[in-house]
């Protein structure tokens, strides 16, 4: 026996829920449409081959695109070993009853939520002014590494935890040492999950702007970046161009956004493909 009135209320509630979900998707669609419309004008080969310029017709983003690629590569090389190492320690070695291991866990969860600008301050204080590594690509990569490390650790831990214990027990029963179990059984089974999580973290890292500004990426660079040379990354260039009042620079910013989003979408698609292709359900 269903009351009619209650059905109407249920239907309205359902509509309200759908509408709240729609807010996110409509905004996303509008944003993509708006950026594509504004940035289409300058999307040509010159954009990829020329350095930034005060003449919008001449300007390109080559040094920034290259610097972002370098940052991504360095980020991957530095975060993955550290992140996976930490995850293995926490999941396979650490005794959870010890206070310091519990503290380590809370510490990582908190670090994942520390505002990115605070990492920028850390970079300003220690890397740029502290150890005197000037405003260079390596400084930017180091600070982004610390920034995305917690995300990689959390993703790697989940992948390692998803490997069933029966596999570990079988290996121990055959006389394997702990490291043999980890390196030959657990890690190979967890690699798809780790790879997916790392790529997603990487895409978060190369989209970051605020910490790079703090380590001096907000600057004019006309030449290709080198590891120990000054740099400006793609998100920073977007910020720079957006802060000019002329419409043409706003259009250039939109073009740079298209390029950045294309890079991030490629990474995301790769992560999703890896997950679907290799992930095993136990």
């Amino acid at each position: 026996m269903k009351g009619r009135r209650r059905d109407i209320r249920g239907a309205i509630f359902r509509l309200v829920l759908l509408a709240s979900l729609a807010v996110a998707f409509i905004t996303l669609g509008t944003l993509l449409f708006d950026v594509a419309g504004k940035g289409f004008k300058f999307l040509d080969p010159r954009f990829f081959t020329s350095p930034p310029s005060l003449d919008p017709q001449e300007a390109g983003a080559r040094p920034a695109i290259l610097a972002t690629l370098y940052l991504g590569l360095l980020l991957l090389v530095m975060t993955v070993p550290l992140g996976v190492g930490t995850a293995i320690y926490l999941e396979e070695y650490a005794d959870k009853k010890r206070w310091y291991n519990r503290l380590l866990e809370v510490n990582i969860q908190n670090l994942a939520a520390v505002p990115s600008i605070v990492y920028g301050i850390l970079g300003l204080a220690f890397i740029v002014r502290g150890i005197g590594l000037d405003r260079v690509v390596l400084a930017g990569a180091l600070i982004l590494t610390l920034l995305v490390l917690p995300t990689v650790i959390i993703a790697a831990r989940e992948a390692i935890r998803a490997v069933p214990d029966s596999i570990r027990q079988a290996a121990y029963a055959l006389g394997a040492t702990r490291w043999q179990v980890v390196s030959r059984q657990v890690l190979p089974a967890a690699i798809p999950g780790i790879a997916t999580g790392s790529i997603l973290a990487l895409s978060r890292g190369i989209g970051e702007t605020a910490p790079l500004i703090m380590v001096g990426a907000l600057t004019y660079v006309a030449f290709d970046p080198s590891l120990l040379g000054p740099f400006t990354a793609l998100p920073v260039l977007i910020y720079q161009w957006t802060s000019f009042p002329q419409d043409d620079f706003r259009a250039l910013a939109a073009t740079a956004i298209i390029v950045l989003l294309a890079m991030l979408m490629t990474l995301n698609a790769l992560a999703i493909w890896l997950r679907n292709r290799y992930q095993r359900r136990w």
Partner: protein
Amino acid sequence: MSSVELSTPALRASRRRYGEDIIKGLLALCALVSVATTVGIVFALLLPAIEFFREISIVDYLTGKEWTPLFEPANFGVLPLVGGTMVVTLWACLVAIPFGLGSAIYLSEYARPRTKSFLKPALEVLAGIPTVVFGFFALTFVTPLLRDIGVQVDIFNALSAALVMGVMLIPTVASLSEDAMAAVPHELRDGGYALGSSKLQVSTRIVVPAAISGIVASFVLAISRAVGETMIVLIAAGLQPNLTFDPRRAMETMTAFIGSTGTGDIPTGSIEYKTIFAVGLTLFVMTLVMNLFAIRLVRRFREVYE
């Protein structure tokens, strides 16, 4: 995890394996990097901030209503920055919390598994868009839009930055809340239906209350992220420290001050340089308190149902 118990039985290795010990040491060293990061952040903020508070009284800093550190006469009252941050956070949460929670209830209770498996990753796309892009969108699309529909906003204003930030935070609220709701056992829902409840009643009176600690955690995390968000406010909210509650005006938040001041070539050791760290410390402490609170809440819902 349970391998710890497995290795404890009387079957001991016949000899100590030093290679194994070294590997464990190396892995622990990796874990120490995170600890070093936290220690580094605390020291990077604390040391210059202490010097700052030697010159500026902490009471003046926390209660002063004028923030003009770069001009003469310099005033170091942080309230306009805190106020700007609070206004932006409030309006962002007015968007993120209801829409995020609504999305979570839909995904967890109403969507079919196939729809959900498509909608959840699509929501993640929104979460993956860089904040500088949202800033661009707020300044070049939302502000003109607000003016077109008759809202009298300044060119740089807190409102459009906050609205866009709110949409950006919808996935944060939705995904964690949905996790918490998915962890509620099906028996509770079935009990509700057996007593003749409608889906609306089961969702709002059983699932939401049962998942409340996770839902509140998602709110707290969203607030913490709104407080710490930099690029959107740096681009779209303007850089004028205004102590006002009118979101249509230009405002400066704590993060925007750090971001705009940290770029220049301020001489190390000057009072202007130290303000970055004093404001950074204020920001860090505020987000730390919220993060720890959220982490504790999440742990609670994991303990109850998983």
